[in-house]
């Protein structure tokens, strides 16, 4: 690990631009600090009480000067503002890329649970390949946490009750700190871990190797398969079977518009499906009796994410003649 330096390692696609922005701000800070300190110290010496310096015609007002030292810094500030806003939008806008590796993150006091689309689960460790965008879909099971990897210059608060996403691309292999940046109670300081960045081939090998020890079928499942298993175990199908009439079919649901009984029209994304499972009464689809029970307490956040992966993977036969299809990474 980098030690003793003044700058963290640059290990993601965002690191260089972030550091450049930082240097520019340091430049501005030095510039303005000198603009204040040099005259201040110069005056302290030159105009010390009793010195012989010329003090005739002191001034007390100067509109031009006032405008100059308000507007020029403001203009410089606005340039940095635009740049910063651009970088922010880039970092926090969800990726649409097909190629992105979708990793789910569940934060809880005081641990990070991560799962790969191919099913590998990790605690406080994350293995990822270089050269491929990584998208994190994150949620907390209890309080607010914050997923922070300094070497990647990424951070975002992980909230209870709502998904947030963040993406990056690792550019340099190695082992990097993972921290929780938002204070979350007793062991906040210990809610740390490591991110291992590997070459793509190595990552593939790691994926296989990490399933060698799997003893049960469940441990070999991909996320979508785990979701399907759950779907059957929980008997969601008893109502949601495409043939049944008293509940809507979930095939092809993901990304569709849904009209609710209170008049709202919402897109069926991750948050919508999560709410439908936990708080079905707050999200009633029009035309159906609200008979779905809540699964709060029965299904945890990790399992909801698996169900979502499964529902995402189930295509509607009417939409797609290839019918039901489970892609290995659940991000079709």
């Amino acid at each position: 690990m980098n030690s003793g330096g003044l700058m963290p390692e640059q290990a993601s696609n965002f690191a260089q631009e972030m550091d450049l922005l930082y240097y520019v701000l340091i430049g501005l800070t030095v510039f303005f600090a000198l603009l204040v300190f040099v005259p201040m110290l110069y005056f302290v010496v030159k105009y010390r009480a009793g010195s012989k310096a010329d003090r005739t015609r002191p001034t007390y007002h100067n509109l031009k000067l006032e405008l100059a030292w308000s507007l020029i810094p403001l203009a410089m500030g606005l340039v940095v503002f635009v740049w910063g806003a651009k970088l922010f939008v880039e970092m926090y806008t969800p990726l649409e890329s097909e190629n992105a590796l979708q990793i789910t993150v569940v934060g809880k006091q005081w641990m990070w649970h991560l799962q790969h689309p191919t099913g590998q689960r990790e605690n406080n460790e994350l293995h990822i390949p270089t050269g491929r965008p990584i998208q994190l879909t994150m949620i907390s099971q209890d309080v607010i946490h914050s997923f922070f990897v300094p070497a990647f210059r990424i951070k975002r608060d992980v909230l209870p009750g709502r998904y947030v996403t963040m993406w990056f691309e690792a550019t340099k292999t190695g082992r990097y700190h993972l921290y929780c940046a938002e204070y979350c109670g007793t062991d906040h300081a210990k809610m740390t871990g490591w991110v291992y960045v590997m070459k793509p081939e190595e990552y593939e090998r790691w994926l296989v190797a990490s399933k060698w020890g799997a003893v049960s079928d469940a441990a070999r499942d991909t996320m979508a398969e785990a979701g399907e298993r759950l779907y059957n175990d929980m008997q969601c199908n008893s109502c949601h079977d495409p043939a049944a009439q008293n509940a809507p079919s979930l095939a092809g649901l993901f990304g569709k518009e849904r009209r609710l009984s209170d008049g709202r029209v919402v897109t069926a994304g991750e948050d919508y499906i999560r709410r439908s499972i936990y708080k079905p009464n707050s999200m009633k689809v029009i035309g159906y009796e609200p008979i779905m029970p809540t699964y709060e307490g029965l299904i945890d956040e990790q399992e909801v994410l698996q169900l979502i992966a499964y529902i995402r993977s189930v295509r509607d036969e009417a939409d797609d003649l290839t019918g039901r299809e489970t892609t290995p990474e659940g991000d079709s």
Partner: protein
Amino acid sequence: MSHTDAPKGTDYLHADYSIKSWLLTLDHKRIAILYLITISLFLAIGGSMALIIRMELLTPEGDLLMSDTYNKAFTVHGVTLIFFFLIPSIPAVLGNFLIPLMIGARDVAFPRLNLLSWYVFTTGGTLGVIALVVGGVDTGWTFYTPYSTSFSNTAVVTAVFAVFFAGFASIMTGLNFIVTIHKMRAPGLTWSRLPLFIWAQYATSVIMVLGTPVIAITLLLIAAEKTLRIGIFDPALGGDPILFQHLFWFYSHPAVYIMILPSMGVISELIACFSRKRIFGYEFVAYSSIAIAVLGFVVWGHHMFVSGQSMYAGMVFSVLSFLVSIPSAVKIFNWIATMHKGQIRLDSPMLYALGFIGLFTIGGLTGLFLAVMGLDIHVHDTYFVVAHFHYIMVGGAILGFFGGIHFWWPKITGRLYPEILGKLSAVLIFIGFNFTFLPQFIAGYLGMPRRTHSYSEEFQVLNVLSSAGASILASGTIIAVAYLLWSLWYGEKAGRNPWNAKGLEWETSTPPPTTNFERTPTVTEEAYAYGPDDESGEVNNERD
């Protein structure tokens, strides 16, 4: 110019010696002293917590304190120093003491309300101490939900009520000041002749009166959710945690200005007096206080860029944050311009003023790093933020408070402190401060998260530097407290106007009589009318 002197023995300190005469006093000067004593206790509590924190952070392992204890230590540090020291510091002590004197009034508009505010404040303070004694609070001064409402099992409700009471005290103070400044100025003291300290107090009071009710209600909502389990902030109960952050920062960003504006008012007085010159760009310095108060209310979202607030809201808050930095910059440039062609003396209050300018400049500029949305992603919730706001709140607010205390100490107590020790402590505080907090910028950018009692090894060197600096900072402060206390008994008696300063407070005797002025003064000139005749700035400490 009136020139009044009270007969000996009737100054406000010696008017009556009984405890009752202090505890039931309606004299704004005595209430200021009551406040000074109370907040000093909280400075001691909060300051010792800082030292414990810095001791723990000498090593990367969490070896001195258990994590829970550490979490309580930084919570006590933040809560006491923000709500029970910094917010009341200059307004309730220097403001209370000086506003009537500076505007030529007998007292504040509502003396009873003034006394009540101290009692309410002390009630809050007592509750705070109770919260501490019954086991402490571990939420941080920010009380973020749902941690505070659904997960922490410490004395959150007691602490919340403590802050609630302190808030009411500050509403009372603010209300009192606004009315006093509007209604009780001496004849001839127009708004454009007001000392800039008064302008700053006025702007601060407006923030106190408008902002504090919001935090008060928010804290009550915390208590309601925690005790009655009404879902307001906790998503598990159907609430929204981000709502809490909006409400909290709606007050707590302006609260930063409650802490810093009064200091800026002090600095204007000091720079003018020790440069023997009128303030350059008086109107700009005055109106910038109002601009800060107004704009300060619309930038709170810059604390929430990474917390799940909408991106477009973030952009608005970011651009407004750049805007709010301009009035502060205007003040700094005008202070420097004031020194141009002055007769500059480096007495201890002036050293504090120059220290303020240095540290506040750095604090303000590093604030821009955080206002830049992209950069904030990386530095948010790291030591970079910790360093930044200590530059503002210690380097700015506390240095201004110390500068003001040193400047008006002779007027308040009737005694002079040893100037040489004054200079020494000012220099120690400045050096110690930079030692403590400069390394934290670097640690923050390297990625050290805040509020952890253990940390990754590579941050140790920086933390040792920081802890070493804290010990210098602490010794500077302890020296100052020691000689100030010493001066109460052994200090040379101060004359009416030891700094040869302008302003009505220097025209009455020292210490001022209970009624402030024998005859209501009439003002015929602008503030800071330092003319050619007192250019030498010779110290005039005659008793008259």
